[in-house]
């Protein structure tokens, strides 16, 4: 068995007296797409922010090892430079910055044209547009995924990558996720959409800050739909 790319052990995150993540354990293998399912407030996005090292997200306890290295001492950009990145559920908008600039970030080795084409946006129509309020929610989401593609990350954390995407374009998003994997990356895929979750290699269901069920994507989707919560019996997760 290959060593896991990401190894989370006993991860706990509290805000005041509220426990958001509760002794969470999870491993992600190289080249794995791992779907995270769970009701709103179950801790999925908090986990994403802890993995990325967002401001204010310092674990109360536990460890996160990425390729055997403890991530916590590393700042956000240092994690990114090691190959970890995050695509936000609601991506930021940048006044004045063009799509080309956003996708390349001053680096010559990033190919914005092909990344845009892969997310289904015509490069000649979008490269000179600005990453601001003029983009629709769906367009902004696709550009966010294109920016992840240009990074060729070792671990991409995608928080609701298909939110706001029209039904006809979901296949683009699914293909992008597969492309990230084919390029050698692993993906933590946070999603509420079944057809997106089903492309994963494995899946886990969060509830009350813990993983309460893990298995194949189909098993976890069915479990989630069945509203079976062994831990809280519906009291915490709102089933």
């Amino acid at each position, binding site marked *: 068995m290959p060593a896991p790319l990401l190894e989370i052990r006993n991860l706990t995150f509290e805000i005041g007296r509220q426990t958001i993540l509760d002794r969470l354990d999870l491993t992600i293998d190289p080249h794995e797409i791992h779907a995270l399912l769970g009701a709103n407030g179950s801790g999925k996005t908090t986990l994403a922010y802890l993995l*990325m090292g*967002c*401001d204010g997200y310092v674990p109360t306890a536990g460890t996160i090892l990425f390729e055997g290295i403890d991530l916590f001492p590393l*700042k*956000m*950009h240092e994690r*990114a*430079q090691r190959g970890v*990145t*995050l695509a*936000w559920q609601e*991506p*930021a*908008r*940048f*006044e*004045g*910055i063009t799509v080309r*600039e956003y996708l390349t*970030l*001053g680096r010559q080795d990033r190919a914005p044209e092909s990344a845009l084409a892969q997310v289904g946006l015509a490069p000649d129509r979008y490269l000179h547009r600005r990453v601001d309020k003029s983009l629709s929610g769906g367009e902004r989401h696709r550009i966010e995924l294109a*920016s992840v593609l240009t*990074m060729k990350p070792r671990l991409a954390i995608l928080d609701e990558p298909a939110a706001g995407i029209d039904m006809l374009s979901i296949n683009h998003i699914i293909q992008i996720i597969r492309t990230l994997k084919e390029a050698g990356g692993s993906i933590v895929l946070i999603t509420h959409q079944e057809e997106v979750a089903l492309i994963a290699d494995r899946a886990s269901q969060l509830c009350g800050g813990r993983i309460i069920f893990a298995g194949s994507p189909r098993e976890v989707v069915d479990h989630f739909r069945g509203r079976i919560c062994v831990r809280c019996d519906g009291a915490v997760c709102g089933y």
Partner: protein
Amino acid sequence: MGTELDTLRRTLPMVGAEPAVLDDTRIAHVVGHGHRILSRRTVPGLRLDLEETQDAIVGKMVIEAGVTIAQPIHMCFGLAHPTGVQQIKINVKVEDGASARVLSHCLFPLAKAAEHRMQAVMELAAGASLTYTEGHYHGPHGGMQVLPHATIRIGKGARYFSDFSLLSGSVGQLDIDYLVEVEEEGLAELAAKIFAHKTDQIMLKEAVILRGERSRGLIKTRVVLEGQARAEITGVTEAHAKGARGHVDCMEIVQGQAHASAIPIVRVFHPEAKVTHEAAIGSVDKKELETLMARGLSPEQAVEMIVSGILR
């Protein structure tokens, strides 16, 4: 005179202009140093009547009715010495249906204790159009005091666009006061972008008075402050007639020990008029910063990219 002209020419790239524009016979220009006119050229349809007095360059610029000036008119004013005073008093008339673009370059590359005053009256007749782009460079020393004051009257269906920028070097003391009155179906868009450092001080007051029916106005200000710079930005929009629409949009990014204030003032005097405003003051947006850091930029690189975008 040659030395002063050469100095101002060499400084043009600081505001994004090429020195060669002053040699092109198709392009109108005026170059003023202190209260002397060093160079001027006009083109068909443009009357440029400027004269030197002891305490100002005084005169008028007229774009004749129905004429479209194809190439931008370059107005280059400045001082090539560390000290001095320059005052410009100019009337600009854009006659019926005429159209022009003015690139105004205000260059004070060596200023240590210098002053520039501009008093302008601009009148756009019915259907006229004027785009007025004003680029300033005040050198590195922070010794410049700049007071541009203008009254702009926009006639029926006329369109006025202004874009003030001061992005390189120090600001010194800047006190802008623009009053724009817009008649029926007229349009005024005022944009300003300023990057202030050290002990720079900015007072920026822009007022758009929408007098005519279906007149429209936009005031958009972007200011980035660092060091101990100070800025007070006042955007006033009044709507007096049916269908008038106005918006004030002010963003100030504050870093270091800098201070900023934004005062949007909106007044509506007709039930079918509408004015909106938005103002944001603070540090660089956290989510924007983290997004760029999640792509591998250091915090410093991320701030630089965000700021450069805001000031475009």
